[in-house]
Each structure stands twice: as structure tokens, then as C-alpha cells.
């Protein structure tokens, strides 16, 4: 019995429940429903954390070395990001959108073929550890849990992806809500979302978090590639696509700051950016040839 997969199944169900409770709370705004929703989000976060911990124990390395594991890391990061946002800005209605995205991500992870889910030993290029950490952990006999640039690279990248996913959710919400507002219509469900100026702003803030992390991810990836392959950058499709998404978000930031793009145009760019992320993450792995083992 692989415990991580048991926890995965739990998390899967929990995300479904969490999404449903948030949606219910969005439809019939009730204080107790909102409290249950947030509680469920925490329960789900705990369960997802357990998937990662169990996975690390089972495989003996950082739990993000294949597509399946990285998906769990992704939903985990989105969950934390969402909870932080909910705590800070107090908008539970947005949970309906984000948790639905979370559930869809879990669904796609669960549909991956089994060979992605099984625990695999690391191939030589993926064994990258920081010396100081190995030396330190050796004292306790735990050196196999040391991490390196590679783990750091994946981790940062996924924090970035998570932030972009949130900005995507917000941008979509903005676009739908704004469409109604422009027509002068109202809709009690859309009214429960923050006003569209706020959505626009939040979407920017999410990107402002995602962009430095994506950059850090690309840079640490280059440091690792320089150690494993002897060159920091080799224009392999994954690298190139990461540069493409980076350029798209850079143009988003510039359009916003220097040309005053707000609202719909900015939201569409945020959507485009996230579509590029999806391609970078899944498309490149399955469609384009290259050196990267996965994510």
C-alpha cells in the first residue's frame, strides 16, 4: 500500500467537497457555510501536505521529481496562496473559482497514467544536492534528504505557477463580471465577487508574486543545468517556453505600468500568460521533444 496514494485519494475527495462548499457559500451566503469552507480548505491543505511528506519518505528524495508529484506540489501551493489571500482580503466568494480550479488540477493529475504515479529512483542528472546540507544532515544520518538547486528550482517554479493560476482565476472572474457591468446588468452571483477594480488589482498582485518566483525558478534551473550539463542555457523547448512565459508576463507588467493597461486588456494578457504556463507545464512534456524529464 503506497500511503501517498491513499492521501492523494483523500485529497482528491476533499478538493471536490471544498469546491462544492465554497460554491454553495457563493450561492447562499451564510456565515456557517463560509466557516466550513475555510475549514475544509485547511483540511485539504493538510491532506495534500501529507501526500508530499509521505512521498518524500517513500522515495527518499524531495517529492517533486515527476509530473504527478509536481501536480500535487502545484495544488498545494495554490491552496496556500488562496488561503493567504482569503485571510488578507477576506473574499470567500473567490474560493468558488480557485477551488474549482484546484479540483480540476487534481482531476487531471489523477488521470495521469500509472507510470507517472509510481515512485521512481532518480536518474543521474537529477541527483543534485547542496554540499553544505549533505554535510550537515550527515551528522544525523539523514543525508539522503538533502536538497539541491534542482529541488529549489522546481519549488520556486511551482510557487510561480500557483500564483499565475490564481491570477488566471481572478482575471477570468474579472472578465465575466466586467462584461455584465459594461452592459449595465447585475447578477446577484457576480455581485458577490469583489468589485472588478479590486479583481484587476488582485490579479496584478498575484502576478507580481508569480513573476519573481518564476524568474528565480528559471535562474536556479540554469544554475543546475550548468552543473549537470555544463551549460546554463541550451535552448531546449522547456527552457525556451519558460522564457516565452516570462516575456509574456514581462509585457503584462510593462503594459500595465508604462502604458496604463488595466481591466480587460490586462486580464486577457493574464489569461494568455497562464495558457502559456499550461503549455510550458504539460504541452512541452507531451508534445515537444527535449531534455527535461518532466515538469
Amino acid at each position, binding site marked *: 500500500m503506497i500511503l501517498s496514494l491513499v492521501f492523494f485519494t483523500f485529497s482528491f475527495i476533499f478538493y471536490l467537497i471544498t469546491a462544492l462548499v465554497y460554491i454553495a457559500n457563493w450561492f447562499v451566503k451564510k456565515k456557517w457555510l463560509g466557516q466550513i469552507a475555510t475549514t475544509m480548505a485547511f483540511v485539504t491543505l493538510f491532506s495534500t501536505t501529507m501526500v508530499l511528506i509521505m512521498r518524500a519518505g517513500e522515495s527518499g528524495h524531495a517529492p517533486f521529481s515527476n509530473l504527478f508529484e509536481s501536480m500535487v506540489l502545484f495544488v498545494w501551493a495554490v491552496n496556500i496562496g488562496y488561503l493567504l489571500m482569503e485571510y488578507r*482580503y477576506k473574499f470567500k466568494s473567490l474560493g468558488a473559482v480557485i477551488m474549482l480550479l484546484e479540483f480540476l488540477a487534481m482531476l487531471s493529475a489523477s488521470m495521469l497514467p500509472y507510470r507517472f504515479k509510481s515512485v521512481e*529512483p532518480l*536518474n*543521474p*542528472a537529477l*541527483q*543534485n*544536492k547542496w554540499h553544505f546540507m549533505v554535510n550537515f544532515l550527515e551528522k544525523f544520518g539523514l543525508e539522503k534528504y538533502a536538497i*539541491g538547486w534542482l529541488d529549489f528550482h522546481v519549488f520556486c517554479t511551482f510557487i510561480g505557477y500557483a500564483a499565475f493560476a490564481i491570477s488566471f482565476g481572478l482575471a477570468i472572474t474579472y472578465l465575466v463580471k466586467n462584461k455584465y457591468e459594461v452592459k449595465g446588468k447585475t447578477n446577484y452571483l457576480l455581485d458577490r465577487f469583489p468589485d472588478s477594480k*479590486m479583481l484587476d*488589482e*488582485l490579479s*496584478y*498582485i498575484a502576478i*507580481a*508574486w508569480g*513573476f*519573481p518566483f518564476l*524568474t*528565480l525558478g528559471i*535562474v536556479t534551473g*540554469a*544554475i*543546475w543545468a*550548468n*552543473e*549537470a*550539463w*555544463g*551549460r*546554463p*542555457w541550451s*535552448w531546449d*523547448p522547456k527552457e*525556451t*517556453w519558460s*522564457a*516565452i512565459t516570462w*516575456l*509574456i508576463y*514581462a*509585457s503584462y507588467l*510593462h*503594459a500595465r*505600468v*508604462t*502604458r496604463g493597461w488595466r481591466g480587460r486588456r490586462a486580464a486577457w494578457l493574464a489569461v494568455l500568460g497562464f495558457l*502559456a504556463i499550461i503549455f510550458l507545464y504539460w504541452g*512541452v512534456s507531451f508534445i*515537444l*521533444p527535449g531534455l527535461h524529464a518532466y515538469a
Partner: protein
Amino acid sequence: MAKAKENKALHQKIGSGIWKFFSSLKLTITVLILLAFVSIIGTVVEQNQPLENYLMAYGEGWTKFIVYAKINNMYYTWWYNGLILTLCLNIIVCTFERFPTKWKSLLKHKPSKFDATTIERFSNKRTVKLNAGFEETREHVEKLLKKSRYKTLKFKSEKDEDFIYGWRGVIGRFGSDITHVSLLLILFGAIIGGFYGYKDFKVVYTGDTIRVPDVDYHLRLDKFWMEYYDTGQIKQYNSLLTVVEDGKDVLTKQIWVNEPLDYKGVRFYQSTWGNAWNRVKSANIAMIGKDSEELYSVTDIEWQVLTPIPNTEYNVKLIGFAADFAYDEASNQVFSKSAEPENPAIQIEVYRGERLISSPWIFVNYPGIFPAIPDSDEDIVFGGYMGVLYSGLSLNKDPGVNIVWLGCSIMITGFFLTFFIYHRRLWVHVRKVEGGTEVSLGGLINKSNFVFEREIENIAKKLQGDNKK
């Protein structure tokens, strides 16, 4: 003025035209999006493939175009790098255009005019009325601003009125400039690496010494070995390398994938491994009579070691190996068609006593095809061999890489300043009114209005809340 403009020489006009082109912020977005877009092409059309592959995938017409526009090696073409260069010029010109004014205005940001109507013009503002006395409130406001990490300045102080200006996070405004400079630095590092560095690849056997370009030392491979998981998957491959300088061993280090050796600006990476196609550790040979199937005097001979065949008058030396034997008539050379042991053959020197009598190639798959010993009833057959592994080492000298890393750290710092440090300016008007004191505050933030609204709200609340106690 207008006249002077007309009289400008042509080259000046062109010069200012170019300057204007590169100072455009529309250009920035255009180039960023264009770069993103054309980069996609290079990920769809596989790079650096043999011509046949393109012909097969795209047909003749498109292949011609691909080769003409160098889309098969796109990231190194003049037009792709031209886009990057445009980006750099754009950054440089924009920085020259905008930075000096920005610098001055940020250093001298203190308001030149501040009166009772100033605050009304801000969209972020609050007015609260307190029961507390004027002096007390004034001090309280300053304390609160300090606590929120504002620097403050008493703009004007009158008898019943105080104008306080506070600011915070000016440095955040320079984040974007730092980012831009770092980008130039990264590209500069990449160019330096391209011009003054090199990449090389060497196939090295245990015991071999290799020459390293551009430096005054040699490198010796002492040992190469593999490690496996219990499942049989390869876990890691390792080389033990020794640096030899002036004939002396100066440094020995074990390298593996992810753990290079760095010596005097050159890095040695474990990049591949493989079975040698042109040498072996030892070979197994035997004697056979012309008309018999019986083997006798079976023996193993080591690479390049003269070895007697037991109970015969012959000595042999193993001098060549081809994993997949092939013969090139034009150059009269033997070579291996591939690295796979499809048709293994060895070359031996055969000595009768001390005298070299032949040096034939003999084959595992075709025993006796060429007699190894001329004019004799005996022959030598090749039974098998112990292969050797080679270590594939990449050599890389990249004097620009540290500039690149420096640029990357600066860039991350720039992002931190840009995205997490907001520049806020706060105007506070404290005024004695009937039955207490009135405080109006309002101001500007360079981004994230929401954060600022809340901050103003909080300050107002604190002023009131603390006062109630």
C-alpha cells in the same frame, strides 16, 4: 527655436529619429511580445537536425525557407539576436531618458506646497475628529507614522495647525531600473562567455591523460565506474580525475553528473559514458588446427601486452579493436561503423619467437576468414573480449558565467524592490477645532491602491481607538 530645428543637419535628424525610436515604450512591449512569439517557432521546428529530417517533415519548399532563414538554428541568427539587441538599446535609451528626472524628483519629492486643500485632491483620504488636545494629537500622529515606518517632515507648523508630510519606500521605485541594468549585465555576461569561452567534449579512458586547451595543465582519468540501483537502473557514473601540472599531480577529485571539477577557470563535467568501440581490456583467443574443430592453448591477452600463447612458439600482442568492423578502401583504414558490437574484431600482432610475422584482423563472427598465421597448419581464433567503458567529459570555459549569476541576483533584488516595496506618500493635516482636534490624512502610492486605503484606514482607526481609552 523652430528655425533652429529646421536647420539641423541631416545626420542629427536621423540621430534624433533613431533616439526617439528607441525611447518608445510601445517598442518595449512590441519587442517583448515579438520575442515571445518568434521563440515559439524554434520550439516547434526542432533545432540543429540533419537536413533529411526537415525534408521529411516539411517538404522541399519549406525546407528551403527554413535553411534560408536559419530557422534550424534560430536562436543564433542575426535577426533573433537583433531583437535582443533592440531590447538592450531600448532599455539603455529609456534609462537615459527617464532615469535622471526620476532620480531628481524622487530625491526632491518633498512637497513645495501644502495647505488645507491639498489633501482633498487625493482619492485616498480620511478625516477624523478627536476629543484629544492638539499637542497630544500631533505627537500621536508622528508616533504612529514612525511606527508604520514612515519618515516624516514637519512641512509647516502654525499655532493651531500642523502640516506633516510622511514618506516610505522610495527605494522601491528604483527596482525597475535595477532590473533593467541587471538584464544588460546578464546579456553582457553571455556575450563574454560566447567570445572568450569554449566548450569541448572528450572521450577518455582510464589511465589516459588529456590536453586541456588554453591552460598549462593536463588532466588524467584515474578511474571510471558506474553505480546501480537494486533494480538495475543506473544510479550514477563517476570519474576520478587528477590534475597534472609540470609533471606533478596537484589535485584529485571524484566527479559525477551534477558534480563538476573546477580548476583554473575550466570546468570538467561528467556528461556521458559508453562502451569503447576502438579498444578492449582483454581478448580471449585460442589456437585451432586447419582441419579440426578442436581448440587448444586457450588464453586471455591484455591490451598492448606481448603475451606468449602457451605450448606454442608464438607470442601475440593485442593492438586494435573495432566493435562494428568496417574497412575503408580509399584510405585503407579500419573503423567501427557504430559503437554497437555488431561485428567485433581485434587486430593482433603475431610473433614467431621474437620476429613479427603478421598483424591480422580476426573476427568473432567469422573465424578463419583471414588466416592469422601465414603458411601454417595452425590458426588463431578470437573467442570473446572484456570491453572497457569510456568516460565522456565535457570541458567548458565560461568567463562570463559569474557575471550572469551576478546579474541574476541583482535582477531578483530588483524584483523584490519593485513588487514588495511600495512608495507611499502621506500628507497629514492636524488642526484644532471646537471641542477637540481634527486630523485629515491622504496621499499617494505608486501601486496597490488597496493596500494604501487600508493603511490610511488603520491609521485613522488607531488615532480614534487609542483616543477612546
